[in-house]
């Protein structure tokens, strides 16, 4: 105990004194737990979608309004961006800032293209009178897909900030931690999209 053991606990002290833990490792653990909460969040939204997807209030269902070519394009773009974000991390592990930044920019552009396509899809639906207030099905659709889109958009802004920080500070312990976290986040959004694609779009048009 405190002072009593300070003698034989002494050699511990040095390794344990600096907040006694690796802050980056702790950040990553916290982020994993945050992702659990995000899984629950999306899970709840998926559940509401499944409950409501037949309640079209006399309006159109998924089969009538989903346009698969755009969705498939979105899927490929997002999957590719996940791959490029992985390449960014590899570049970071090699210590190559330039490559790291370039891959991040590629990822950013792909993500932005994804959001662009999604917004186009939404605008088109709303223009045709299939807005969020048209039926419970559409409310659930827009909220679920929109929440994913919002997550991606937040990720984009965040990525931009990190690109700026990287160009100023290079690869340090802190920036390395940040890149690890955002790449985890990006892969997570990719996984959520796969579920979205299957539950909303594929089951919707089948």
């Amino acid at each position, binding site marked *: *105990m*405190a*002072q*009593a*053991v*300070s*003698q*034989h*606990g*002494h050699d*511990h*002290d*040095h390794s*344990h*004194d*600096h*907040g*006694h*833990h690796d802050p980056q*490792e*702790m950040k990553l*653990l*916290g982020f994993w*737990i*945050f992702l*659990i*909460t*995000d899984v*629950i*969040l999306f899970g*709840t*939204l998926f559940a*509401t979608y499944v*409950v*409501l997807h037949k*309640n*079209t*209030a006399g309006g159109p269902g998924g089969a009538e309004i989903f346009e698969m070519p755009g969705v498939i394009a979105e899927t490929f773009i997002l999957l590719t961006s996940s791959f490029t974000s992985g390449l960014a991390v590899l570049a970071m592990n090699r210590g190559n800032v330039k490559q790291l930044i370039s891959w991040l920019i590629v990822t950013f552009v792909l993500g932005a293209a994804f959001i662009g396509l999604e917004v186009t899809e939404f605008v088109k639906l709303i223009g045709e009178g299939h807005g*969020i*207030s*048209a*039926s*419970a*099905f559409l*409310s*659930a659709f*827009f*909220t679920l897909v929109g929440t994913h889109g919002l997550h991606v958009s937040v990720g984009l*802004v*965040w990525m931009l*900030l990190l690109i700026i*920080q990287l160009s100023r*500070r290079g690869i340090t312990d*802190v920036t390395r931690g940040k890149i690890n976290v955002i790449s985890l986040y990006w892969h997570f959004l990719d996984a959520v999209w796969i579920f979205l694609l299957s539950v909303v779009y594929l089951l919707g048009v089948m």
Partner: protein
Amino acid sequence: MLEKIKDFASDFFVTGDPLIYGADVSIGLAMIAIVVGLTYFKKWGWLWRNYLTTVDHKKIGIMYILASILMLFRGGVDAIMMRTQLAFPNLEFLHPEHYNQVFTTHGVVMILFMAMPFMFGLFNIVVPLQLGARDVAYPFLNALSFWLFFLGAMLFNLSFVIGGSPDAGWLSYPPLSELQFNPGPGQNFYIWGIQISGIGSLATGINFIVTIIKMRAPGMTFMKMPMFTWSVFATCVIIIFAFPILTVTLALLFIDRFAGAHFFTLDGGGNPMMYINLIWMWGHPEVYIVILPAFGIFSEIVSVFSRKKLFGYTSMVFAMLIIAFVSFFTWAHHFFTMGSGADVNAFFALSTMLIAIPTGVKIFNWLFTMYRGRIRFDLPMLWTIGFIPCFIIGGMTGVLLSVAPADFQYHNSYFLIAHFHQVLIGGVVFGYFAGMYYWWPKMFGFKLNETLGRWAFWFWNIGFYVCFMPQYLLGLMGMTRRISTFDWDTGWGPLNVVSTMGAYLMGVAFLFQVLQIAYSIKHREVDTTGDIWDAHTLEWSIPSPAPEYNFAVVPVVDSRDPLWVEKQRRAAGKLPKNPPKPVYAPIHMPKNSSIPIIMSTFFFIAGFGFVFLWTWMAVLGLIGVAGCMIARSFQYDTDYYIPVEEIEKTEASIRGTV
């Protein structure tokens, strides 16, 4: 123009009720008094540096508890008003509309803005100290959590004087809470007040899980953790699984109200029953979120004040984890009467009863901790002993309620009201009071006055039984919850008078506690030992109040009751009487930050904008929030080292007075 302003003002401010005007005036006066006081004593800078921008878990804990006592007062006044209205048949003390607002805010305030922050306050003060850590895992996030809670609570409370309070019950079932039946801003206050503070709660959950996993003192394995810390761990696990559901549910309700969506509306294919399912998927675990830490507190206190080790540690841990797990599979017992069929009802009845088993085991273990002990009746122990019989009865009526077919007769009646107040007051409130009395000396370095505390304890206890025992009977007489008045012919009058008297007694008890705190501040019984209760765990091994870095030297642990074991070893002469002078190393500490309070204020602004559907204001607030996040992302200089000389100086000055 003037007319327009007048119109706006009469919509904007709640008018037409002397009670509200009274509240307006007193809120105004209190604000002026605070501002004048701070300015006169030149305390603004001190307040800003030491509290408003602090990331020190101990100070954040104190702020949580202060806020929650304030909210206890508000929720208590609500309760007193309700009981006054119901004291006699056909009373017109409160108009039905006001009555509905009052019971809604009473429920929300007590659960979300009283119990939750009280709990978080105790988490903050105790957990890092019990772990032998210097702070929580993410001190900045911790401060942000507090300010989100606080400003969310303030936003909610604002509805009392601006715009009108929510009035659809504490869980706001649609369609009653939808635009169709509830067009005013009150419901939006409900959504955003809870939403903003809910983000804070979620963050706290993550924070403490990481703290407990990563920051335990060397040698402290999971099975050597103090029981309170275990309860915090179990609670935080429930939080991270339950709170996202609340976030989504409230968001969907708001999208319904804001964008005309059809999640829970009657028309357009909406499904109000889905809301009821979702809100209870959060709501039921929420009950265990607030009760588990109380169990942890009792476990600590029972063993310290019986001068024994805690009986059945492994059973206790196991029981708590079972409760945490099963709590996610019982939600439908809140609506057996929805007509889901016998299969569903049977499943949820059984899962609910299952929880009684580990809970029962915990009670046995507490009893056998006292068995062959030497029980001291200091205030913390007094509350613990008051808790046991109260919780036994509350637990029993809980089991009765879980019997699905019988619940058809108890549901929504005063029987139910009596039950959940018995577990929430007898369990949660008594538990947190016990915790407050127990750790108060650690927080402030002095003890709370014993005599006044006993007055408060007895008034609380007698008042509780007088208030709630009659309500069981009223339930069996057919009195339903949330009625704003009743007729003479029901014959419910006399027992309601008794119940109201009980509520007043609890009001008196609260006044005694306020008096007790004020008196104790003035006539301090200073504790110089740091270990005023002869306790078992690490937080008592350091001075009271703890220095900002908590532990000058990180302790090493080899048992469940490290301090107790050390004291025994020292008494037995196995350790030197005067420990050798410890060797210090510079301590790594987080810097204060003004971002949490500023960012939360922007959240408040955004929330206020959403309440009145002023999109410009909401957008402004959200931009502010984003700006704060960006600012934080670019901050690299977030910590500093306390040099050895300073530690030596601090330690000498604290220990010197010993």
